Every structure is written in C-alpha cells, then in structure tokens.
C-alpha cells in the first residue's frame, strides 16, 4: 500500500507533468488551446456581464445620490471648459477646412470616416500578467477577430480570437506579444510599437540610429499593420537611447489611460489586410 504522503507527491508530479506536456503541445504547434479557451471564456463572460451590471449599478448609485457634494463648483468649471473647447473646436474646424482644400488641390484621396461601435469593459485581467479585457459587444454586434480598439487618448488593442455573440476579448497593446505599426510624427520614421509589461510598457522597434528622435515626440499608428488606420495616437517618447545594433531603443508612454478603461470604441472598418499583424 502506498503511503499517503508519497501518493500526494506522485499526484503532484503527475499534474506537473501534465502541465509540461500541455505547454509543449502548444509550443510545437504554435497555436493555443481553442477549445479550453473558448469554453472558459464562454463560461465566465456571462458571470462578468452580471458582475459588471451589479458594480455599475452600485457605482451609479454612489455617483448620483451619495457623492454629490462639490457638483455646483464642478458645473461652473465644466461650463468654462465647454466655452474654451467650443472656441478650440472652431479653430480646429477652420484648420480642417483648410486641410481639405489643400488635399483637394493636391488630388489626394480623402480619408474614409471610421465606423465605430462603443463597448463597455465588463472584465479585466484574469491574471496580473495577461493584460486583456472583456467587452460587452460580440459577433452579433458586428465584432470580428483582429478589429482595432481605441479609447479616449489613443489606441488600446485589438479583438483577440473569435468573439462570443455578446462578448469579446481585447488584447491590450501594453501586453506581452502585442504590437502595432507606428510612425514617429516629427522624424517621419516608421517602426513597430510593442508591449512588454515593463515601465513604461511600450517600446518602439526598428527605428534606425540615424534618425533624429527626441523625448516628447508623438507616436502615431502607421496603418501598415492591417488593424489600425493611420493617424491614431499611440503615445509619446519618454526615453531614447542609441542601440548596440543598428536600431534605437525607444521607450513610449501610452496615450490611452489603460488603468481607467471603462468605455472603448471598436473600429468596425478594418483596413485592408486585417489580421495580418498587430498582435501575437
């Protein structure tokens, strides 16, 4: 008869071996475990919708009825801000109008307006290092794999895998293995911005050492990844070093506030060749 302690150890070793085989199978085939992932996602998506509704309701109750002190002064400040922004909007409209006439003069193709769909974030990272979110829109709302997702400020990530009818997972750009085609606005240098989980979480790769890149330079999407159209904000350069190879080491602070993601916009018109890049 096997001693109970030895039996526990055997059980542990067996389970560990199972994990190693599972990992090896995926590394060799270069694909995930679609069935396990789909079943787990489907099982938890419903729970998360309910949990998000409860937390949203409690938050709404707090914001609308309990935390009302300071609303009057906030209103005054917001009115002033609206007035300022209206002025700014008019300036921008004037500039846009000028740009359109210049574009017409140069006979450039006018940009097609993006169709977007607003979605609510209903769940965060299942593990601290996975960096994915779940949104409350799915295949029935027109969501497909590899569509780009943006938020206030800049791009957020892309739809990962096949969505459920009413939920979809989004791989965040700051996560490990995520990437987007990028352009340094001032230097006019193309490259790839990749996530990695460091601090700052984004790095721009493949920018030659010969280019003049400075701290504070804006980084935009280049449109070459087939996920994001060109011109969306990715972030700002916070550190530049000359690399030991022929490329610079560039650290980027994301434009989107990833720690405050409540609502996002899904870009429904994927650029040509969607799915060819932008992620792992």
């Amino acid at each position, binding site marked *: 008869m096997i001693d109970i302690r030895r039996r*526990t150890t055997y*059980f*542990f070793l067996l*389970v*560990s071996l199972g*994990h*190693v085989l*599972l*990992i090896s199978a*995926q*590394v060799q085939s270069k694909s*995930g*475990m679609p069935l*396990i*992932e789909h*079943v*787990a*996602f489907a099982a*938890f998506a419903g*729970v*998360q919708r309910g*949990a*998000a509704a409860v*937390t949203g309701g409690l938050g709404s109750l707090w914001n609308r009825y309990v935390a009302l002190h300071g609303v009057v002064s906030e209103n005054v400040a917001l009115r002033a801000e609206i007035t300022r922004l209206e002025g700014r909007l008019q300036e921008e409209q004037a500039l846009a109008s000028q740009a359109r006439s210049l574009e017409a003069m140069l006979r450039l193709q006018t940009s097609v307006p993006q169709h977007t769909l607003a979605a609510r*974030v*209903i*769940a*965060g*990272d*299942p*593990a*601290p*290092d*996975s*960096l*994915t*979110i*779940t949104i409350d829109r799915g295949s029935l709302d027109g969501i497909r794999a590899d569509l780009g997702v943006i938020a206030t400020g800049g791009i957020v990530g892309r739809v*990962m*895998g096949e969505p459920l009818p009413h939920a979809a*997972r989004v*791989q*965040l750009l*700051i996560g*490990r293995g995520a990437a987007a085609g990028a352009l340094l606005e001032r230097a006019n240098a193309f490259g790839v911005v990749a996530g*990695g*989980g*460091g*601090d700052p*979480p984004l790095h721009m790769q493949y920018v030659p050492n010969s280019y003049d890149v400075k701290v504070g330079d804006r980084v935009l999407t280049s449109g070459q990844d087939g996920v994001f159209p060109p011109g969306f904000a990715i972030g700002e350069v916070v550190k530049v070093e000359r690399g030991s190879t022929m490329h610079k080491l560039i650290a980027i602070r994301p434009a989107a506030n*990833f*720690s*405050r*993601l409540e609502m996002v916009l899904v870009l429904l018109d994927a650029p040509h060749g969607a799915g060819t890049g932008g992620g792992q």
Partner: protein
Amino acid sequence: MKSAAVVAVIAVAVALQMTLARFTVGGRWVFDLVLVAVVFVALRWGPTAGAVGGTIGGLLQDALGGTTVGVGGLAKTIVGFAAGVIGSQFIVTRPVPRMLLVAGATVAARVVVLALRGLIDLSWPEVSWTGMLTETALNALVAFLVFQGAESVPAMIRRRPLQRASFRTRRW
C-alpha cells in the same frame, strides 16, 4: 464535498479577480486573488487540495488571458502544493506568517512564470520590479483580510444563538 469547496473557492476568486481588475487594468495596483485563494485552499485542506486548486485556477487564468495554457497552471500547482506542505509541517495560523507565505508564494509563482516564458521564447522577459513588489504587498494584504474573514465570520455566526439565549436568561 472538499473538491466542490475547492472548485467553488477558485471559481469565486477568478470571477472576483476579473471584476476588480477591470478598474486597474494595466495600472500600478496589480493583485492576484486566485493565488491568494490557492494558498487559502492549500492551508485549509492540504497539499493535494492546493495542487488541485492551483491547477484549476492557473488553467482558467491562462485560458481567459489568452496566454500559453499551462504556464500559469504549472506555477500555481507548484505554489499550491508547496503551501500545503508548509502548512502541514509548520504552524501557520497567525496572520503574519500567513501573509509572509502568500508574499513568498507570489514571488515564487512569478519567478516560475518568467522562467517558463523565458524557456518558451528563448529570451528572458522584461520584468517590472515595481509591479512585482506591489503585487506581493497587495496579495499579502488581501490574504490577511481573507484569512481573518474566513475565521471570524463563522465564529460570529456560531456566537449569535448563544447571545440570544443569554439575553432570554437574563430577562426571565
């Protein structure tokens, strides 16, 4: 009964992790409630339960996060088993040793995950030391609350009928 309890604790931890992490996505406040739940299960029901809890919790996290399925699973299985063995060999009943155990488990799980990722990608992944430190501290804090709550709530429920009886005795 024990298996059902282990599964229930881990499922609740995964659901809570995803609900609460929604407010801190990619931020500085990183925590892993599933890891705390695995250590809780291991200390309460032993190394086998810890390994089972770690396997279920880790696999669920891997599958939901879209990462290589099994990496987190193996890390949490090792941590759950080790926490169960420590719990059965040493007296880990006071809050500080429990918090230290969860802190150690956090670092161990993270190191195993990084090592496995390094092996898979053939390059050592970038590590956010601030993030790891925050996660360790937050997990230890959550562990303190969870373990204290798990002990004091049933004790409070047990005391309630006795208080009523003593009130009646005094009145009559």
